[in-house]
């Protein structure tokens, strides 16, 4: 019985790790638009994954962190960006009863956290609200325009996410 439980746990973490790998790989593969002020990361579309599996919560966190160690945004992005992704993923998971809500938390959380980071840490003018809005806009493009259609599509293949 105990071993059954452990088995589930290991599969959970490994699946999470692989989701992280996919996120990082996609960020790198589509690099030109992934890094930059507008941050239209195609991999941000993956933030809808918590809808399918809770393993996506730590998975996206790790993926974001690893992708950032490769980026040149520096340590602050590694820390705040990943934490923002974690929080967003967790909230998305909680909202999964209503699919249309799922893409929203990443937009809000990333907008707030990364916007603040850009303003305070990187000194990007002109003001806090505008920085936040700017990031939120980029997130919106990825999460809604790419993420939501992806969600609808993957729903038909839900089986692949079974642990």
């Amino acid at each position: 019985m105990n071993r059954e439980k452990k088995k589930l746990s290991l599969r959970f973490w490994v699946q999470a790790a692989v989701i992280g790998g996919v996120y990082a790989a996609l960020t790198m593969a589509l690099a030109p638009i992934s890094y930059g002020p507008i941050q239209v990361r195609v991999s941000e579309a993956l933030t809808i994954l918590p809808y399918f599996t809770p393993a996506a919560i730590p998975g996206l966190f790790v993926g974001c962190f690893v992708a950032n160690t490769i980026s040149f945004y520096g340590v602050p992005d590694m820390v705040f960006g990943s934490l923002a992704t974690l929080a967003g993923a967790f909230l998305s998971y909680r909202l999964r009863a209503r699919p249309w809500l799922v893409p929203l938390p990443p937009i809000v959380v990333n907008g707030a956290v990364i916007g603040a980071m850009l303003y305070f840490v990187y000194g990007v003018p002109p003001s806090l609200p505008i920085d936040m809005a700017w990031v939120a806009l980029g997130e919106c493009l990825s999460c809604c325009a790419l993420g939501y259609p992806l969600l609808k599509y993957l729903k038909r293949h839900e089986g692949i996410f079974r642990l």
Partner: protein
Amino acid sequence: MSITVEHLTHIYNKGLAYETKAVDDVSFTVGDGEFIGIVGHTGSGKSTLIQHLNGILKPESGRIFVGDTEITAKGVKMNEIRKRVGLVFQYPEYQLFEETVRKDIAFGPRNLGLSEREIEERVEESMRLVGLDFMTYAERSPFDLSGGQKRRVAIAGVIAMRPEALILDEPTAGLDPKAHRDILDMVLSIRDRSGNIVILVSHNMGDIAEMADRVFVMDGGKLLRAGSPADIFADEDYLKRIGLGVPPATRMANVLAKGGFAPDRTILTLDELAGFLASPSSGLRRDAT
């Protein structure tokens, strides 16, 4: 339609410390309806080479002609090329993604902008060609099928584009003997029906010997030799030196030859070998008296 390659060179990681010439000044012509086998050990450049033939990769230098079109020239539409040259990658079943077999096969034709009726027709046709019964499989999810069946669906997906030339990269990799045989028979029947060019990349010398009109030997990015299977497989030592082998039947015949029982021509298939063993002139028969 023929395919001509002139002085094709492809360099990976150009300018970096670990730059490599994956394809080094390769030239050849494949005539209309020819069945070409390409052999070479891993890393010899065969996969890189074939990816140029349908425009997936662009060469560093050199030209490629598909029919009358120079596909390496500027302004050539990729979809035009892909309509004419179909490429089936290794382990093609890993590219399946649709909910049903029929939808997945329809992906290619749909990308070509064909009408729904035309697409439907092609799906049915290609399923027939790969030996999958339409009624049974059309509505099933490709993920529920066996490995061999999945592979057929993937191949059908490419055939549905009705290419004038079909390139297959190790289509029998990872299959059990029966599925292996089935796929090969399928390739042969497709070729017989369409009369189109088929290029088969394989590690299996026996398959190549059986099916190919000509064999290309690649090593280190270079096209070292080209000729009929009988010519190429006659030189076992050379092939061994570059890390390749010969068909099993040929190997056996060579062993017999060393023992003093040489056949008068290169043996390529088991049938030929059996024929040789059974013939009175081999000296191997022991007639019952």
